[in-house]
């Protein structure tokens, strides 16, 4: 950057104090170089201040409304996708819980569901039993506990995802 005498002065006249203005006046009388630089800067400053505000094409607000509507539409479509996806995930998990034996004999679906519910009940029961006799069954107890915690965690995640993505309120319709 070129070094100039003007660099040592606040180039914005609004920044000059009364004393500085006086000092500048004195300096200007002494230095033609400073005078030249100042007038060059003032020409630039005037060009900046006179340059017009650039406007967009007419209908900016209408285009914004259209964009908002499109975004809302996309958002609700995404919400439907999330809802369907999460429901399918839940159904698949339930199917896994019921067991592959259902697939072998679809007629026994009812009994398989009951069996699965009983299996979960048994798991909880054994957890409680192991709580009572901690000393004897540490490894099995820890296993049952970990399994229950994992199941609980997956369920919580599922519910949270449902709440957040499938039914969650959207701030002003956009996200």
């Amino acid at each position, binding site marked *: 950057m070129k070094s100039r005498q003007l660099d040592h002065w606040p180039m914005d006249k609004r920044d000059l104090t009364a004393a500085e203005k006086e000092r500048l006046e004195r300096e200007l009388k002494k230095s033609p170089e400073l005078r030249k630089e100042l007038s060059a800067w003032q020409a630039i400053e005037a*060009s900046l201040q006179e340059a017009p505000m650039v*406007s967009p094409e007419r209908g900016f607000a209408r285009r914004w409304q259209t964009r908002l509507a499109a975004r809302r539409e996309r958002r609700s479509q995404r919400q439907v996708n999330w809802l369907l996806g999460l429901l399918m995930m839940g159904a698949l998990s339930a199917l896994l819980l019921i067991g592959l034996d259902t697939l072998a004999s679809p007629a026994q679906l009812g009994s398989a569901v009951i069996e699965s519910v009983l299996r979960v009940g048994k798991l909880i029961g054994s957890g409680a039993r192991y709580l009572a006799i901690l000393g004897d069954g540490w490894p099995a107890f820890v296993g049952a506990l970990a399994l229950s915690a994992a199941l609980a965690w997956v369920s919580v995640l599922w519910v949270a995802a449902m709440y957040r993505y499938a039914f969650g309120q959207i701030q002003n319709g956009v996200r």
Partner: protein
Amino acid sequence: MVRDDETALITAAAEGDGDAFGEIVERYHKPVYNLCYRLLGNHGDAEDASQEAFMKAYKGLKKYDPKRPFISWMLAIAYNQCMDQLRRRRISWVGLEALFNRSDQQSPSAETTVVASGEAERVQEALSALSTKDRAAVVLRYWYDYSYDEIAETLSLTNSAVKSRLHRARRELMDVWTAEQLALGEGQNEISPA
């Protein structure tokens, strides 16, 4: 009066009234668009950035502090949007030629208010020589008549950082302007008959 009306519109918009915010967009789109245009240098990007800035403002309306002028808050969002856009697209300032090519491609409409005069072109070209933050400080100072404090708030800078950025920007502008004038002078000498 206008302020009360504005507060009512903001309150309604914060409750999800898109039309109320549409009214706000109508009111403030010009200064927001101008800032985006001055920072991004072409109409297509400026339109996108300003539209997106209003979208972000609408979404984040609950975070708006009514003690602050709405336009300052809006310009800060627009500035950040432009910075994001520049970062993403890695726009390089390659001078007036590229600028005009892009403007021609992206906004051919006769309705667009195009910066037409030679002086305005020179202003935009000189601005493009500055860094984005320096450019934003100059735009806010000279087009919006912002004080140092207001610029600092909008650009998330300290007051002294704004002063030094503006000082540097002015020096750079002078360099560019002088170089241009010299080039113009040489050009005229070459054209004029001996």
